[in-house]
């Protein structure tokens, strides 16, 4: 059983019917689009239920439990409610921009599903610039938030929009640098190739083993990119009411809400693909259908991690958050990138076996992580001693 061969058999069948090549391609693309989009939208409903249930369980509550078994039908009930609710547009709003913003918000996140490899070559568009493609549509999302914040013509919405864009901006840099590391190790930006490149050691040669610090850094930055706690300043109720989507109601709000959950899932899927081997796993070369199981297992594991963190941690202040990104994460990601590049090049020149290079990469990661943590610890300690109220503003080390 191989999903890819089903698709190829379908194309061959269409060609056998005597349909011209162009139409076969078009039908193929259309079907692929509908399958992935249908999957994404169903997934959103499942994710909303899952996150609420998990948060409830972690915080010793029941979570949704009224509609259907285990509250499984709750998202559907919510969707129906949102569909039929009155939609309030502020009188001062800039109409066209106001209505365009939720559309762009959901558009940019759906577009990312087109390049995620669900199993070997089971991917909407197997393009060579997958990693950059994800960054590109992420950038479009910031535009949607700016539009929403500006068009609502509400001070809180505008402030929230600007804050969240400043946050997404800042955390995009360490994420880009860290995403470059798997690209560098594999020599391709194609997400499927990156997953394939982690097939050593019986399908377990994932990059998380050689670059654990990079993976942790991705995890932290992804929390901020996904606007999730402890980095969910855009919805800091006590400071700016609710963020850029404050003036949105009914279906338009639903689109922002849905985009938020799908964004978390995409970040999980990217983490799974870049660092946890994607569809790679034992026996996947013999039974390709196992790839889907591995991929979803890893992705939902990551999603569970994100939900866990969200349900557990308190929120940071915005100055702490920006300082943490630019003064800790960016230098750390640059150090990891350059260290990986130098070690891999050394390994190539001196023809080291893979195990030696991998071991040295691991040691380098641990060293970078420990240095960062010890510097951080020293500054928080000195700041505590100074009785400073600001817990976290690291300075440059005295050289």
């Amino acid at each position, binding site marked *: 059983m191989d999903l890819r061969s089903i698709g190829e058999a379908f194309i061959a069948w269409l060609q056998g019917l005597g349909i011209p090549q162009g139409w076969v391609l078009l039908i193929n*693309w259309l079907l692929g*689009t509908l399958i992935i989009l249908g999957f994404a939208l169903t997934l959103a409903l499942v994710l909303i239920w899952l996150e609420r249930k998990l948060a409830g369980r972690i915080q010793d509550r029941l979570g949704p439990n009224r509609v259907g078994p285990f509250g499984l039908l709750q998202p559907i009930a919510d969707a129906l409610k949102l569909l039929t609710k009155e939609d309030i547009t502020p009188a001062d709003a800039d109409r066209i921009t106001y*209505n365009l913003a939720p559309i762009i918000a959901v558009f940019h996140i759906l577009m990312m599903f087109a390049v995620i490899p669900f199993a070997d070559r089971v991917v909407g568009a197997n393009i060579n610039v997958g990693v950059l493609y994800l960054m590109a549509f992420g950038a479009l999302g910031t535009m949607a938030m700016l539009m929403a914040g500006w068009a609502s013509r*509400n001070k809180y919405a505008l402030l929230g929009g600007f804050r969240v864009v400043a946050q997404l901006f800042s955390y995009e840099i360490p994420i880009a640098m860290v995403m470059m590391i798997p690209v560098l190790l594999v020599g391709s930006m194609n997400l499927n190739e990156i997953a394939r490149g982690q097939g050593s050691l019986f399908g377990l040669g994932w990059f998380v083993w050689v670059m654990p610090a990079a993976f942790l850094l991705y995890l932290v930055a992804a929390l901020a990119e996904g606007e999730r706690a402890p980095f969910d300043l855009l919805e800091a109720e006590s400071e700016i*009411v609710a963020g850029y989507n404050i003036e949105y109601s009914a*279906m338009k709000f639903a689109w922002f809400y849905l985009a938020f959950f799908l964004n978390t899932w995409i970040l999980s899927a990217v983490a799974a693909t870049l660092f946890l081997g994607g569809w790679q796993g034992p026996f996947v070369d013999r039974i390709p259908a196992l790839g889907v199981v591995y991929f979803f297992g890893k992705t939902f594991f990551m999603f569970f991690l994100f939900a866990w963190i969200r349900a557990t941690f308190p929120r940071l202040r915005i100055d702490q958050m920006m300082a943490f990104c630019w003064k800790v994460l960016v230098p750390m990601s640059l150090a990891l990138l350059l260290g990986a590049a130098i070690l891999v090049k050394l390994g190539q020149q001196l023809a080291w076996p893979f195990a030696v290079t991998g071991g040295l990469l691991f040691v380098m990661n641990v060293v970078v992580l420990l240095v960062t943590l010890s510097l951080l610890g020293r500054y928080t300690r000195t700041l505590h001693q100074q009785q400073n109220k600001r817990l976290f503003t690291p300075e440059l080390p005295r050289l």
Partner: protein
Amino acid sequence: MIAQQYGLVGVFALIAFLFPIVTLAFTWLIRPKRPNPIKQSTYECGIETVGDAWVQFRAQYYLFALIFVVFDLEAIFLFPFAVAFNKVGWFALFEAILFVLMLFFGLIYAWKKGALEWQ
């Protein structure tokens, strides 16, 4: 033809863009519409809005955007280098390190000048 690989992306973009529009149009048909001035007023916790909402922002936001733009460009330069990494020699690696260090000096300058402080 590389462009053909993007056929699905194109079809996908079209449908992913039309789908939310269609749903919004659909809800526009079925939902109740009873607007009144209070409902449509700007939401500020019940307090009357003072002045225009399009207020002036501090330059701090711009400084962050600025540093971001520079590092974003660095990423665009480094991604092709990362792809070609296995095919280039020591000299190229040295060049890339110089490139990164140059911008790292920029970051340190911004740090020293206090551009990274959120006030």
